[in-house]
C-alpha cells in the first residue's frame, strides 16, 4: 500500500498523464486513431411486459374455466406445467404478485416512486379474479405454487392446529413486506423468495438451500409456501371467502364417501355437520362476546407492542444504518473508515443531513410499527373469532379460504366421474 502511494506521489510530480476530469489534457492523436465510444447494449424491449400481462389474463381465465366449468384436474395440471415453464423458468418468476405488493405499497407512500405497469397488473388481476371466481391464480397460474403442487408426492395431513397457527405467519410476513416497502427500506419478499433462485438457476448458497428445503418439504406437505408463508396468499384467502363463485361440490352427486376430503392435501374440504351444531349454546355466545370485547384490546395492545420494534426495524434502512455507523465512528475515533462513510464523503453528504434523514425515517417507522403490531393483533383476534364461529353445513363444502382450487378432489369423486350405481344415483336424486 505504501509502495503504491509512493509511486502515485512520484507520478503526480513527474508524469504528464495525471489530472482530473475537469482539467483534461487528452492526448492528441496524429496517426489517424479515432477515440472509440463505449458500447451501450439496450435492455429488453418494453413489449415483453405486455406479453406477460396478456398471458396472465389468459391463464387466469383458463384456470377459472378449467376449475369451475370443466372441473378437470388434468387440465389444471397441464396449465400448471405451462406456468412453471413460462412464468417460472422463462421469465424467472419475476415480476410476481407478492413482489408487486411491495411496489404498490411503496408507490402509495413515496410520491417519487415509479410504479411499473406490470406490477399493477400482476397485483390487480389475480385479486379481481379471486373476488369473482375463487383462488384460480393459486390453482394453475402461480409458478411458485405450481412448482410445489407438481412435486407433491406423498401428502401428509397436518393437524388442524398446525394449519391454523402456521397460517398466521403469512399475515405477519405480509405486514413486514408492506412495512419495509412503504418506508423504502427493503423488498424483503423479493429477498427471501425461495423459488426464484431455483427458476433463475443461480443465486446465493443460502437462498438456493432454502429453495431446495421448500421443495423437499413440498414432497410431503402440500404447498407449504402457499399455505404458511405467501403474503399474497393471505390476501387471496380473505378475498376468496367473499368470492362470487368457487369450487363447488354438488350435493346431487354426493354420497358422503369422504374420498374428496381424504384426497385434499391441504385439508380444505369440510364435511357436513350434525344439525345441532347450528344452534349456538350459551357458553359459545359468552365466549364470542368475550372475543369481540378483547378484539380492540388486541389491536391496540398489538400496536403498542409493535412500537418496541421501531429501533431494530428501522435498521433495515441503509440511511439509518449509516447514521449508526457515524455514531460508532465518532465514539471510537480510530481504525479505517467503513466503505459506507467513505462513500458518504465522496458524495458530499454531510453528517448532519444523514442524521436528519435517519431521524425522519425512524419517526416513520414508529408509526409503521404501530400499524404493524395493530395488524397482527387484528389478525389474531379475527382468527380466534373465526375459529369460534360454528357453522352448520348440510353438505360437503370446500373451505372458501383454504381451497386453492387445485381440482384434485374432482378426480377422486365417484359421483363426479359418473361411477355411481344407478340405484344409489336414484336415491340421491330423490333426497
Amino acid at each position: 500500500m505504501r509502495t503504491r502511494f509512493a509511486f502515485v506521489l512520484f507520478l503526480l510530480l513527474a508524469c504528464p498523464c495525471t489530472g482530473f476530469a475537469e482539467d483534461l489534457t487528452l492526448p492528441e492523436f496524429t496517426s489517424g486513431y479515432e477515440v472509440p465510444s463505449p458500447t451501450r447494449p439496450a435492455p429488453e424491449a418494453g413489449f415483453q411486459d405486455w406479453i406477460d400481462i396478456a398471458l396472465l389474463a389468459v391463464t387466469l381465465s383458463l384456470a377459472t374455466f378449467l376449475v369451475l366449468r370443466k372441473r378437470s384436474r388434468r387440465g389444471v395440471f397441464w396449465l400448471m406445467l405451462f406456468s412453471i415453464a413460462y412464468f417460472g423458468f422463462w421469465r424467472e418468476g419475476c415480476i410476481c404478485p407478492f413482489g408487486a405488493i411491495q411496489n404498490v405499497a411503496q408507490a402509495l407512500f413515496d410520491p417519487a416512486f415509479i410504479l411499473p405497469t406490470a406490477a399493477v397488473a400482476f397485483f390487480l388481476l389475480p385479486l379481481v379474479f379471486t373476488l369473482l371466481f375463487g383462488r384460480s391464480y393459486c390453482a394453475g397460474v402461480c409458478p411458485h405454487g405450481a412448482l410445489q403442487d407438481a412435486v407433491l408426492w406423498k401428502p401428509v395431513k397436518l393437524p388442524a392446529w398446525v394449519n391454523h397457527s402456521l397460517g398466521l405467519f403469512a399475515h405477519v410476513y405480509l405486514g413486514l413486506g408492506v412495512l419495509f416497502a412503504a418506508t423504502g427500506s427493503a423488498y424483503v419478499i423479493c429477498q427471501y423468495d425461495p423459488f426464484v433462485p431455483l427458476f433463475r438457476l443461480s443465486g446465493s448458497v443460502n437462498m438456493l438451500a432454502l429453495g431446495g428445503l421448500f421443495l423437499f418439504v413440498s414432497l410431503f406437505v402440500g404447498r407449504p409456501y402457499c399455505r404458511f408463508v405467501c403474503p399474497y396468499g393471505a390476501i387471496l384467502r380473505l378475498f376468496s371467502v367473499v368470492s362470487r363463485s368457487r369450487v363447488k361440490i354438488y350435493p346431487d352427486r354426493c354420497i358422503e364417501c369422504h374420498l374428496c376430503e381424504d384426497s385434499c392435501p391441504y385439508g380444505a374440504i369440510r364435511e357436513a355437520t350434525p344439525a345441532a351444531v347450528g344452534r349456538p349454546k350459551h357458553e359459545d355466545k359468552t365466549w364470542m362476546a368475550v372475543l369481540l370485547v378483547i378484539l380492540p384490546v388486541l389491536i391496540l395492545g398489538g400496536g403498542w407492542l409493535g412500537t418496541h420494534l421501531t429501533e431494530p426495524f428501522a435498521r433495515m434502512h441503509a440511511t439509518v444504518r449509516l447514521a449508526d455507523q457515524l455514531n460508532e465512528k465518532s465514539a471510537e475515533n480510530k481504525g479505517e473508515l467503513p466503505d459506507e462513510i467513505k462513500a458518504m464523503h465522496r458524495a458530499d453528504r454531510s453528517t448532519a443531513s444523514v442524521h436528519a434523514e435517519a431521524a425522519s425515517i425512524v419517526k416513520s417507522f414508529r408509526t409503521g410499527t404501530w400499524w404493524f403490531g395493530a395488524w397482527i393483533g387484528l389478525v389474531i383476534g379475527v382468527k380466534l373469532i373465526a375459529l369460534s364461529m360454528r357453522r352448520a353445513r348440510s353438505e360437503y363444502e370446500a373451505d372458501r379460504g383454504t381451497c386453492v382450487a387445485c381440482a384434485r378432489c374432482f378426480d377422486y369423486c365417484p359421483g363426479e366421474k359418473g361411477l355411481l350405481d344407478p340405484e344409489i344415483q336414484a336415491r340421491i336424486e330423490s333426497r
Partner: protein
Amino acid sequence: MAEKENDMTRRQFVRDGLRGGALLSLGGLCGFAWGRPQTTETVWQLDPYKCVQCGKCTTHCVLNPSAVKCVHSYEICGYCDICYGFLAPKYNQVAAGAENELCPTSAIVRKYVEGPHFEYIIKEELCIGCAKCVEGCTISGFGSLHLQVRHDRCVNCNECAIAVACPAQAFKRVPANRPYLIKGKKTAPHMDDDKRNGTQGQSA
C-alpha cells in the same frame, strides 16, 4: 326453515357488500398509486461518481458472472503508458502478464497506439465487475474506467440485490430508454441524469 333462508340471504348480502367494497378499494388503491404522472419503464443503473469500488457488484448480483461490468470511457482516458488501472501496484514490467496485471481475469487488453500512448480495451466476456481497475484508475488516473450495469445481461429484478448491498447507495432506477450513466468529458459528480445523458456520444 324460513329462518335458515333468511340467514343465507343476510350472509350473502354481507358477502356481496364485502366483495363490492374490496373491488372498489382495489380500484381506488391502484388508481391512486398508478395515476401519478410517470415516465417510461425503468431499469437499474449505478452512479459511477458514488461508487467506492468495494467489490460487492461481483458477489451480490443474482447472476454469475455479474451483470455489472467495467466500461471504459475512452474520451476521458489519458492513454497513459503506465496505467494504474491496468498495472498491479508491484508490477515487474510495464507489459501484459498475470504478474503485472491488476485485473484478476486479464480482461483488459493493452494495445499500442502512437507515441507514449496505449489503448486499454475491456473484454466484457471476461470482466467480473470487481472494480480493482476502477479503483486504480480513479485514484491514480483520470477515472475513465468505471462500473456500469450491462443491460444485455441484467434481468432487472424488482429489487436489485447489489443495490441493497452497495455501501454507497449508488444504485438507482433510470428510464429504460436512457439506461446508462457513463462518464464523459462534460459529466461531473452530482450532475442531473438528464444533463449527463445528453452528453453521451453515439449510441452503440
